[in-house]
């Protein structure tokens, strides 16, 4: 626990953490000090001058809050006429050369300039001379589109590429009001985290080619989720919307701050993986690759399972604990072998020392803690023997296809699948299941942090999740408490976890 100190803001005593700068210290107790350039992950730069605050009896009496550590007894002034005027003045300087065309700006609705104008400014423009003209719609690479006229030169993007990715593609060129953020000629953004500059940008200068002009942000529902792109489990916002006469659709993922997992950022692959929630989905049941009635499909699947002497169930390492344990109980009931074979999810050498992991499985630690066998030999041996193979959402990436085809020659394949994976068309019966944005659950990341998440998207025609599908196939678990009870029966660290009280930043097991 950090040491607490007392200081005064506008004459009121507040208790704040020592060692932090004024923006963070005072911000933690709900008092906003406006700022553009400061970002907790990038440190203080002091260039925007928006956070200038008065310090009563201070030397100097006017300081940038981002560069000023909170000190015992300090008397911070935010609501004096002098400070309010300075905030208005800084806004005026930010705005004189800024295009005032918010209605056509993609940032509108989540723009710091807009918000601050409403909170701290609110006066009419006095600009009656020609504005500075700069370049617009610059392709910076990495899916980032830059508008130099909207830029407030806070330098967050530049500092991100220098301090975080250490790739240094961006710089501010030229002096005075000709200063602008730019790339070096012919050297575009080339790092796997580039799109974070879009979130870091407080204004509409950095936009994502993937998202820009797709949605007005005030229509988006912003639900919390966990990225399933790799085993890091980065915290995200799932921004989605159901337009009139259309289905609930995800438009973007954005990083959600969690110091225990991903800090303030996510990788670009994870960010763009929102597309996978919309594209390539298995939305209807199939028999031998052809659409088939869902109820009848259940009947066919049940028969195939009952008639088989040996059944092998293969689960995806992305499934949450709840669905895995439901599968486990189901497998026990029907006497099936259960495999979590997923070596193909590991892409050796792909990870880095920041967020991206080699292992693309979101819940491998969960498989391990539930004691599900992930071995290759066990999988292939069981597959050779199986008369019925139930593949639950496992993509079987990088699998030995020839060996798979050979092993499945005499086998009835039942695919419970969120997406139109390869095996789906070859399956005797394929039944759609929900993907991770459509259900809630708990997963454990590569560092052993247990995180839970809720369903974000509700499709017009909701798709059942794995637990529900298995129940319809005769699985014994029919309610959430039953599922949790089943997890608690597993020996090990999961036995004592209160799944209703997992902290927001996750539970380190």
């Amino acid at each position: 626990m950090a040491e607490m100190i007392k200081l005064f803001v506008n004459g009121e005593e507040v208790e704040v953490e020592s060692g932090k700068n004024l923006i963070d210290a005072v911000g933690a107790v709900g008092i906003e000090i406006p700022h553009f350039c400061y970002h907790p992950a990038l440190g203080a730069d002091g260039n925007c001058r928006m956070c200038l605050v008065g310090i009563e009896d201070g030397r100097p009496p006017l300081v940038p809050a981002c560069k000023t550590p909170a000190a015992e007894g300090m008397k911070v002034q935010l609501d004096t006429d002098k400070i309010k005027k300075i905030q208005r003045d800084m806004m005026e300087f930010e705005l004189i050369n800024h295009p005032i065309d918010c209605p056509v700006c993609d940032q509108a609705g989540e723009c710091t300039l807009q918000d601050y104008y409403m909170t701290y400014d609110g006066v009419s423009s006095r600009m009656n001379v020609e504005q500075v003209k700069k370049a617009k719609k610059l392709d910076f690479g990495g899916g980032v589109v830059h508008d130099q006229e909207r830029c407030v030169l806070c330098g967050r993007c530049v500092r991100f590429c220098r301090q975080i990715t250490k790739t240094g593609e961006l710089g501010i060129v030229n002096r005075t009001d000709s200063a602008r953020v730019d790339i070096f000629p012919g050297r575009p953004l080339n790092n796997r985290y580039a799109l974070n500059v879009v979130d870091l940008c407080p204004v509409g200068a950095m936009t994502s080619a993937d998202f820009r002009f797709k949605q007005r942000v005030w229509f988006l529902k912003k639900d919390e989720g966990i990225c399933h792109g790799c085993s890091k489990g980065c915290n995200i916002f799932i921004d989605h919307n159901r337009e009139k006469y259309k289905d609930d659709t995800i438009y973007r993922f954005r990083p959600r701050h969690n110091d225990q997992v991903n800090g303030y950022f996510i990788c670009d692959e994870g960010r763009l993986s929102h597309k996978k929630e919309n594209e390539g989905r298995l939305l209807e049941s199939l028999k031998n690759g052809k659409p088939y009635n869902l109820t009848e499909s259940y009947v066919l699947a049940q028969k195939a399972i009952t008639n088989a002497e040996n059944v092998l169930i293969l689960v995806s390492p992305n499934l949450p604990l709840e669905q895995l344990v439901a599968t486990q109980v189901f497998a026990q009931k029907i006497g099936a072998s259960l495999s979590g074979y997923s070596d193909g999810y590991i892409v050796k050498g792909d990870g880095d020392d920041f967020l991206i992991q080699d292992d693309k499985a979101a819940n491998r630690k969960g498989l391990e803690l539930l004691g599900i066998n992930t071995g290759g030999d066990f999988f292939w041996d069981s597959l050779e023997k199986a008369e019925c193979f139930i593949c639950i959402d496992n993509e079987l990436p990088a699998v030995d296809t020839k060996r798979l085809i050979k092993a499945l020659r005499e086998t009835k394949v039942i695919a419970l699948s969120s997406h139109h994976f390869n095996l789906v068309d070859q399956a005797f019966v394929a039944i759609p299941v929900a993907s991770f944005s459509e259900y809630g659950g708990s997963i454990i990341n590569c560092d052993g942090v247990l995180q839970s998440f809720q369903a974000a998207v509700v499709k017009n025609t909701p798709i059942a999740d794995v637990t529900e599908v298995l129940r319809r196939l005769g699985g014994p678990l029919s309610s959430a408490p039953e599922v949790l009870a089943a997890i608690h029966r597993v020996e090990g660290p999961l036995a004592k976890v209160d799944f209703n009280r997992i902290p927001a930043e996750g539970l380190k097991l």
Partner: protein
Amino acid sequence: MEVKILSAKFDIENSHKLEVAKEHGAYATLEKLFAMEPADVIEEVKKSGLRGRGGAGFPAGVKWSFLPKDTGKPVYLAVNSDESEPATFKDRYILVRDPHMLIEGIIICCYAIGCHDTYIYIRGEYTSQVRILQQAIDEAYEAGYLGDTVAGRDFKLEVTVHRGAGAYVCGEETALLESIEGKKGQPRSKPPFPAVVGLYDCPTIINNVQSIASLPFIIDQGAEAYTAYGTEKSAGTHLFGISGHVEKPGMYELPLGLPVLDVLDKVAGGVWKGRKLKGVIPGGSSTPVLTAEEAKTATLDYESMAEHGTMFGSGGIVVLDDTVDIVALVKNLIDFYHHESCGQCTPCREGLGWMLKITKKILAGGGSSEDIDLLLELCDNIEMKTVCVLSAACTMPVRSYLNKFRHEFEAYVEKGASLQAAGIQG
């Protein structure tokens, strides 16, 4: 009125050469220097009252004593030779005509503060200064005044000339450090101050060329000999570069404290062409202007200039005769500072450009009385809200012109032309 301390060797042929300089006393103080304790050197400089000659006038010895002790880090000296303030051309005389006086000063300073690495930061376009200075440094190395054993003593000193890329802002001491470090020349936020966290995060002293060049005399002759010149709070002599509308523009070394008008008349030959005086820029373009009336009571020292609402500055005096169009002058002035704004922080980056455009509008006859008020307000809104004082270097003089010569701006607003062109008496 003129004195010859700093400029003693200026008129000697080939004075930039070691051989000639030595004949006239260069490096003669080192014997005495190395017999002193470093702390005593600092004490002597404090007693001399030597104030920073870069423009701010901060006492040099006091600045040195801000260096933290026993940090385990090296101490650096950066000699500021950026000299980019319009109307200022004093340091170039030292660099070209007596570079060994500067090197000798560097040795004195470094011995006092325990520094073994000095960078002389010089504006890149100053090619002849760089060439002559580098020759002098090479000679000094060869003669053993620089290097592992300075003047045969157990004292190591390396001096490196660092050429800037030509930016006014790099004369701001922390932008200068950034530039030496190979970064874009942009001022740092203070605190921390360079004496604590300076070049490469080490304790650093930054002094102007003339400040350092004043040291040999102070050590050689003693603080009292130095304080014999000037006033109580403005000790010693200063190189004054007098330019503008005078009969004899040039570089003159004068003791501090002389009346402005006496200097103009007796040293610089008076206002040229028999014209009347309109105003005096006392110390470089960033110092607020003195009207002819104010100049009557002003003397060339720090206190008097402060009393007159301006600053002593860099010794670059510009004389304005009665034909000067103040609005055009202000446009030029803002143009310069706008162009030189590093673009880092918002008020300076955006504000100076706005002020320039408003002034151009007034100059083109399209301005209004509100525009003049807006200019005045913008001066207040920008000044002291920025990372460094570059913006203040613009707003302080601009405010002075707006307040003292407002009628000239009003003439443009009302008649669309200057006072002179509109046929109105100034």
